[in-house]
């Protein structure tokens, strides 16, 4: 076997080892990576940024721990930005392990709000986030299509109580709040096909502005909805989350992970190039 044939058939364990080494080294060595912001991410940020204190937004946390690395940073960036601006948030979690994700995010972001912070030149004072006043968490119900359609009529149809068992009518934040009509937008952060249901049974039927946060592999599937205007903004994968963190001037895990992703991609590209050089040279030699 000559060198070019070897380049074509590198044992996959070498690929694994090399990739693991690059991930570990770039995780340990801290250096900044420039992130360019796309229009689809900027639109979500600007939309949230222009809302007035007291406005309501709806955040659907429809992902399980397997997509946590990509999607949690989006949740953290958007929710922190919204709470700093004194927006009120209605949360749901329509994937099976979503309540755990939502609960963890709410706890962590509430802790972060206890410290004053400055974003884009504006200093926001520290404050406590209170359940029922700053947010409500409706929780999980199976059959997302039915739940999404039901909430369009009245949040109380699928969720007579919040996740913690408190009747919605007894929560101060829910006074006068019936359905999506009172929400300025819905942000669905999802690692599942639940997004299709938000588009088909939610946005199409009730006409609310919908923004998406989804995993990197899913992003290409949702460009038709962005182009048709059914979705006004989209964050794809860790790159989308990093762009949002950059816009919000709130660096978190996503910006931190960009250097790992960048070098992991370069390793993959390197192996693809090695494989193709070996393949093309070997084919040429065979033809001759």
């Amino acid at each position, binding site marked *: 076997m000559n060198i070019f044939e070897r380049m074509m058939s590198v044992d996959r364990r070498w690929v694994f080892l090399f990739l693991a080494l690059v991930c570990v080294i770039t995780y340990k060595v801290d250096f900044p990576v420039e992130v360019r912001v796309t229009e689809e991410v900027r639109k979500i940020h600007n939309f949230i940024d222009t809302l007035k204190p007291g406005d309501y937004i709806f955040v659907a946390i429809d992902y399980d721990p397997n997509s946590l*690395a990509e999607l949690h940073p989006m949740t953290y960036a958007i929710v922190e930005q919204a709470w700093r601006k004194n927006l009120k948030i209605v949360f749901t979690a329509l994937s099976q392990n979503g309540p*755990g994700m939502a609960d963890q995010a709410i706890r962590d972001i509430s802790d972060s709000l206890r410290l004053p912070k400055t974003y884009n030149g504006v200093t926001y004072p520290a404050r406590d986030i209170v359940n029922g006043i700053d947010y409500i968490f409706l929780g999980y119900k199976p059959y997302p299509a039915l739940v999404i359609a039901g909430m369009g009529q009245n949040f109380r149809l699928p969720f007579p109580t919040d996740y913690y068992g408190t009747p919605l009518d007894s929560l101060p934040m829910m006074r006068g709040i019936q359905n999506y009509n009172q929400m300025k937008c819905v942000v669905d952060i999802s690692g599942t096909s639940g997004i299709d249901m938000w588009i088909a049974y939610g946005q199409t039927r009730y006409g609310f502005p919908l923004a998406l946060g989804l995993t990197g592999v899913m992003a290409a599937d949702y460009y*038709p909805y962005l182009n048709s205007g059914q979705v006004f903004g989209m964050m794809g994968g860790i790159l989308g989350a990093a762009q949002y963190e950059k816009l919000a001037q709130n660096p978190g895990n996503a910006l931190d992970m960009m250097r790992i992703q960048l070098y992991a991609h370069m390793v993959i590209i390197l192996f693809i190039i090695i494989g193709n050089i070996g393949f093309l040279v070997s084919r040429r030699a065979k033809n001759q």
Partner: protein
Amino acid sequence: MKRQIPLALVFIFGVILIIQYFVPHEKSEWIFEFLMDWIYIIGIFALALGIWSLIRVSWDKIRLRRENWQYSVVALLGLTAMIFFGFDYFRNFFNAAGLQNFMFRHFFDYVMIPIQSTMFSLLAFFIASASYRAFRARSLLASLLLLAALIVMIRFNPYFGPLTAYLEQTASWLLNVPNLAAKRAIVIGVGLGIVATALKVILGIERAYLGKD
């Protein structure tokens, strides 16, 4: 009768739900709420059946000492622990506390999350290996696919200097033109297929869901 009753039920409820979807009225809301309760009740039976099936399969595996029976012990222990801590037995018997329960939350945060995250992160290694093997310039179409994949992957790479802006524009064109056209065709095709299948089920033309008996 064994086939006619289910067919009639599917037709009646299918038509009711179609009408309900387009009628924003108080009565329509009531129908929706009523039917949703029924769907949850039926779902709970399916859940019970699933739990029973898991317990039986795992128990048989342990009893007969089949290969990897130890994993079934872990599965049963996990199931029992999460059900036990999911209900707040100590303060209020059979009150579902879920994530408010200290142990339930800790099992979720420190067992469930690391396990699922680890499983998913392994995907990166398999993708790397699969890309190395699959992306070969074997033909014109394969070369185009390879080129498109490379451009999308390096579009934000800051080390390409002034080329980055061009790569970004090209990647954006790839996503917004050829990708969008193909995806849109698929979405419209799938949508029409769903409508056709739903109509076939409601009208009793498609009966595979009834089984063979």
